[in-house]
């Protein structure tokens, strides 16, 4: 048999408790190396669409709030176009789409201020519901967890979303729905383990 020459992906390791040194040194107080931390905001002033604020925590299987979690988010603009390398066209120049979201060192609360993304087609052409891809790393997490923030007030789009439709245990879909807490304000808690465990993806 002929050998296959494919390489294996480099195995993941935990980001550890000191991830902030590498990824957000200024926030940690290590100043003077980089002029600013990357990913402070996924939008600039003037971004088209509804500006929303999402607040949340990351909790473990014992209900404890993680104060050392770090997340990154990636999303389309208000028209559903991704910045950078979307083959369908140019995104809103005031949307970079990517953010680093750091749990507060004392409370574990995190905040993401962004625009509500538009719908994006799945590979089969059906439209996915508005969502923000979220990648969660921390001490104790060996491989970054992929999840999605969707919105509870997008009932029609949620019902038609081929990704949400893939979740066999229908009562778990609600773990991906950010709850509306006020005008343009949402709450999204990531629960790593337990009865209300957030749905995580392998995609």
């Amino acid at each position, binding site marked *: 048999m002929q050998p296959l*020459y*494919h390489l*294996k*992906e*480099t*195995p*993941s*390791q*935990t*980001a*550890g*408790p*000191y991830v*902030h*040194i590498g*990824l957000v040194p200024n926030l940690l*107080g*290590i100043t003077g190396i*980089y*002029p600013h931390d*990357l990913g*402070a905001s996924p*939008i600039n002033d003037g971004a088209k669409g509804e500006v929303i604020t999402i607040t949340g925590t990351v909790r*473990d*299987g014992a209900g*404890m709030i993680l104060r050392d979690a770090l997340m*990154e988010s*990636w999303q389309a603009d208000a028209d559903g176009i*991704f*910045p*950078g*390398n979307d083959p369908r066209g140019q995104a809103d120049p*005031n949307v*970079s789409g*990517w953010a680093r979201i750091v749990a507060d060192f004392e409370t574990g609360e995190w905040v993401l201020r962004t625009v509500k993304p538009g719908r*994006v087609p799945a*590979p089969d052409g059906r439209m*996915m519901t508005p969502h923000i*891809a979220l*990648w969660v790393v*921390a001490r*104790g*997490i*060996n*491989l*970054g*967890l*992929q999840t*999605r923030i969707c919105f509870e007030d997008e009932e029609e789009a949620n019902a038609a979303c081929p*990704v949400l439709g*893939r979740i066999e245990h229908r009562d*778990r879909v609600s773990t991906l729905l950010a709850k509306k807490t006020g005008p343009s304000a949402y709450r999204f808690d990531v629960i*790593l*383990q337990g009865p209300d*465990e*957030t749905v*995580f*993806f*392998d*995609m």
Partner: protein
Amino acid sequence: MTQDTQIKPHIGNAAGDHPHPHPGRPADDARHPLIHRDRDWHPQAYTPGYKTSVTRAPSRALISMPSTLSEQTGPAFGHNMLGELDNNLILNFTGQPAIGERIIVHGRVLDEMGRPVPGVLVEVWQANAGGRYRHKKDGYLAPLDPNFGGCGRTITAEDGSYEFLTVRPGAYPWPNRVNDWRPMHIHMSVFGSGFGQRLITQLYFEGDPLIARCPIVGTIGQQKAVESLVAPLDMNRAIPMDCLAYKFDVVLRGRRQSVFENRMEGM
């Protein structure tokens, strides 16, 4: 390294750091789906030898499906965001040299097909030569080095190559079992052209006897996978009378070549 050292005001990322023209190679085309992860090769989530994973591991199965544009597209970073010393951890904190074993860490970022991945951001962080991190949560009794911050970053060149100049980090104890010590290691965070390729890992050093004893290394089940995280000493790249060198290649998820995505019956 070629850098535009002009520092731009921070107004989020869109204007200062984004976007730059994405490398136009077909392999990076966001229309191409990502190859699925081999999750038997990566560490499992629940690895009780590494105690913190016990309550931070999802207990339910992951929802598996092919990648979508959300995973196939991703942020890009321009060389113009880099400062001249960003990849020089020996000098980038105060300008005065850090204490420790001077080393070059270099390698290439490749995809699973062996193709170089140019233009992607690589970030590193590490303890100093005594095993102490510059972090408010690290109370280890080894002292801080006043001239060592502990972070660096660079962007891969056209051939996927990258390099850092740093000091070799020391081993350090951590509260897991009573006498657990991390091997010498450098944390590395790598972007691909798609958000689904996002990866954080750790580089270990050839010959370190602590590697085989480490519960975090031990979260990886296959010995060959562990070996792929161990950087060999690279005397060909060492600079006589100056510094030693270690080589560390990183492999990211590749992309399937077929763009045919016919809708299946009933989907």
